[in-house]
């Protein structure tokens, strides 16, 4: 399989360079096997787990969609289709987490998970687009074939890396985005098994691995991965100590494992790649097993509280065996593959490019804590005496207990015979990551060396810890107090703050007061137009345009000014209406003076009608309000005057520009000769621009229908609510 690549492609949106291109290489194969293999077992397991559930069909539907999406994700050669499947996994995960959607907690977790992974999705989208910009292609294969210097030297390289990390860290629950994952444990256990430990959360790992050959190797890439991975693994391994819910323990240990993976990839050596590849398998096997057994315990006993559970080996023996094997693998005790994984990890860490010693300390502590977590999840429930309340616990059907057994057995088989996976899985993965796959040789026994000593220390300390420190509700509560500073609550606080900001912003602008809306709009207009005018216009108002003013024109001007001011400032509505009549008359006179008899006539008729309308409505309207707010008036007055002044200056500016009467001249020349009319204005209205008039009378008609409806239509009480 090594080096063999299977390709299949279908052009989807070629304009974007988007195709459904699928490539099966070593990396894809590893993930494909996990997805289909564990998927198959989970499907079987679910048939019993949700046997009588009303919506089992729905559940299978979502699960199938998820599986398809996940496969698509790891097989895509095109980053856009990769993103598409990425989002589909988020959405199907949303539906699966929220499967018990009538429970508030379930909905909330689903929302949180979608929120975080959705945010990551946005990063991914931006990231792949930037990558597309850098490389000029959306095809991963083509990116891989490009000279890395071209990409890494590009100015957007860092942006692309940050964006991709954003996507990967959220999806793979890295600190500080990790908190959605424990929340996602609200989903039915098969979901937790499948999505939140084995597959979906590894999509981020996949992404980073996939792009390691393209973007990896730079300091920002490696350091970020190591630091984030290290913090994540330590932080969540530590946190798993304080859980009493089995799934909580598992969730935190999963996060920790994901951190380890990031950490390993970040080191960027063949050793670390090998370790990562092996650890993916290790983790998938033992964590899936533990989840499945936890599911069985939950399903059969009705509780997951680890402080209550004990002695179940007496009633659930096969399950117990699977769980214990998984726990041993998790602890890295031979002959499980877990041991191999741990050894490789220590080995790789010791050769880390930076601060190797510190990192070794970190990884050892993490492993110790994970040992504890694995024991608590896999051994503690089966150990000791069976409490009275759990005496009636029955074995579930074989579809439920066979899958974990199978997985547990695989942990053993691969541990004992690592060559099975060496050539078929590990080497292809490492070479896909750009490592030297030739150097790899997997074996359980590496000899007595530093790594082995570290392993021994890990096991010893971990086991001791297991016996000393029992999970307890007290501890959980105690650590709960620290929650205030955790990323989750910080995020929640941010959430609250942002919601507050949102409400505030919305209320400030959308405050319900029409006058404020108008004020803002006009203010905006003045600002924009004023800025432009001050910056650009010449203020060269041509004095020749100001033809002499006759006395009667001046009088018309004065009357109109006074009438307008009177309209504005009178305290009687009726006086305002009458004053508007005066305004109308003076406008009419202006039209007469300046050669527009048609306009004068129309203006006057319409003014008369407006007065009539007002009069018919006015006595049903209230008198003016007696609200005196001088500050407001002055503010509005200044704004209005600025607005008016702006328009006036604008008008004068335009008037000093040369005039072009081409169109009017055409009308005038052809009005009689071609359109048989001598009143050019009328000819324009009914002929040259008759379309305007046609529409205009439609406007009038609609207005009339509207008025009619507005006044005549009274909804019946029954209709009012419709």
């Amino acid at each position, binding site marked *: 399989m090594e080096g063999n690549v299977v390709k299949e492609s279908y052009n989807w949106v070629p304009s974007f360079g988007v195709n459904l291109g699928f490539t099966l290489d070593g990396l894809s194969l590893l993930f494909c096997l996990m997805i289909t293999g564990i998927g198959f077992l989970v499907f079987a397991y679910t048939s019993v787990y949700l046997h009588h559930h009303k919506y089992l069909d729905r559940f299978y539907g979502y699960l199938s969609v998820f599986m398809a999406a996940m496969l698509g994700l790891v097989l895509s050669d095109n980053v856009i289709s990769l993103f598409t499947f990425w989002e589909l996994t988020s959405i199907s995960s949303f539906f699966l987490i929220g499967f018990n959607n009538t429970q508030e907690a379930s909905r909330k977790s689903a929302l949180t998970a979608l929120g975080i992974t959705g945010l990551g999705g946005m990063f991914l989208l931006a990231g792949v687009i930037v990558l597309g910009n850098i490389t000029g292609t959306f095809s991963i294969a083509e990116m891989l074939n490009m000279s890395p210097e071209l990409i890494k030297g590009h100015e957007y390289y860092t942006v692309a890396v940050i964006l991709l990390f954003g996507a990967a860290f959220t999806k793979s629950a890295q600190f500080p985005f990790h908190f959605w994952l424990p929340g996602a444990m609200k989903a039915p256990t098969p979901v937790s098994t499948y999505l939140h430990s084995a597959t979906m959360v590894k999509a981020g790992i996949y992404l980073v691995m996939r792009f390691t050959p393209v973007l990896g190797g730079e300091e920002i890439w490696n350091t970020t991965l190591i630091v984030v991975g290290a913090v994540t693994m330590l932080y969540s391994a530590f946190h798993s100590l304080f859980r009493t819910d089995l799934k909580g323990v598992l969730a935190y240990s999963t996060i920790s494992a994901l951190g380890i993976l990031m950490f390993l990839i970040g080191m960027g050596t063949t050793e670390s790649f090998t370790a990562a590849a092996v650890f993916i398998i290790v983790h998938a096997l033992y964590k899936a097993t533990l989840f499945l057994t936890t599911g069985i315990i939950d399903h059969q006993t009705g509780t997951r509280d680890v402080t209550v559970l004990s002695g179940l080996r007496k009633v659930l023996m096969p399950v117990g065996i699977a769980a214990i094997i998984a726990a041993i693998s998790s602890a890295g005790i031979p002959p499980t593959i877990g041991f191999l994984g741990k050894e490789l990890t220590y080995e790789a860490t010791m050769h880390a490019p930076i601060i190797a010693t510190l990192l070794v300390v970190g990884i050892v502590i993490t492993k110790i804590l994970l040992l504890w977590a694995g024991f608590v999840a896999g051994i503690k429930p089966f150990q000791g005496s069976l409490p009275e309340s759990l005496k009636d616990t029955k074995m579930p059907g074989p579809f439920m207990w066979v899958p974990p057994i199978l997985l547990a057995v695989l942990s053993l088989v691969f541990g004992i015979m690592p060559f099975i996976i060496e050539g078929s899985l590990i080497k292809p993965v490492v070479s896909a990551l750009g490592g030297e796959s030739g150097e790899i040789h997997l074996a359980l026994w590496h000899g007595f060396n530093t790594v082995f000593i570290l392993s021994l220390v890990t096991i010893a300390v971990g086991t001791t810890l297991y016996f000393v420190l029992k999970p307890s509700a007290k501890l959980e509560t105690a650590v709960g107090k620290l929650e205030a500073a955790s990323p989750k609550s910080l995020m929640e606080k941010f959430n609250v703050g942002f919601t507050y900001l949102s409400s505030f912003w919305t209320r400030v602008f959308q405050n319900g007061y029409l006058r404020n809306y108008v004020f803002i709009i006009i203010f905006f207009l003045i600002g924009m137009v004023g800025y432009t005018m001050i910056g650009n216009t010449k203020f060269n108002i041509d004095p020749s345009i100001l033809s002499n003013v006759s006395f009667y024109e001046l009088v018309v001007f004065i009357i109109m000014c006074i009438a307008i001011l009177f309209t504005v400032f009178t305290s009687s509505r009726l006086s305002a209406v009458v004053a508007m009549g005066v305004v109308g008359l003076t406008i009419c006179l202006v039209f007469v003076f300046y050669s527009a*008899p*048609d306009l004068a*006539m*129309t203006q006057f*008729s*319409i003014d*008369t*009608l407006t007065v*009539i*309308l007002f009069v*018919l*409505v006015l006595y049903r309207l209230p008198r003016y309000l007696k609200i005196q707010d001088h500050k407001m008036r002055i503010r509005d007055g200044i704004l209005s005057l600025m607005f008016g002044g702006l328009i006036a200056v604008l008008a004068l500016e335009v008037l000093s520009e040369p005039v072009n009467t081409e169109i009017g001249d055409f009308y005038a020349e052809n009005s009689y000769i*071609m*359109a*048989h*009319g*001598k*009143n050019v204005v*009328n*000819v324009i*209205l*009914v*002929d040259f621009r*008759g*379309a305007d*008039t*046609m529409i205009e*009378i*439609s406007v*009038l*008609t609609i*207005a*009339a*229908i509207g*008025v*009619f409806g507005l*006044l*005549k239509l009274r909804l019946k009480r029954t209709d009012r609510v419709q």
Partner: protein
Amino acid sequence: MKTIILRTASNYLLPVLLLFSIFILLRGHYLPGGGFVGGLIAAIAFVFHSFANGLKNTKSLLRFHPGFLMPAGLALSFFSGLSPIIFAGDPFMTGLWYHGHVPVLGSVGSALFFDMGVYLVVVGVTLTIIFTISEAP
């Protein structure tokens, strides 16, 4: 307003106003006027009549709902705009003209019918609005 003077005056002013409105409509193509102003004046005539005689009397004078004038006028305008497509194969609203001189009107063409449509719509709209308001509680 029940005053004898207004009522009587309205009886002689109504025909004068209506006649005047048609006059204004017809001469619009040559001199100031046209469908808009004509229609507005006709509408004002009826409104005036309703002030003097009450809405009921004016409505009975009209015999049909003024709202009917709107679709009628729209249709007239629209078809006079459509006529060139039908009769001459020209685009919408191309002027069609009867080439000959008709007393009073001058040339007769589709534009005149268009303007008449405008007139009817304006009358219909204005009266609908004002009558509706007058009737509303």
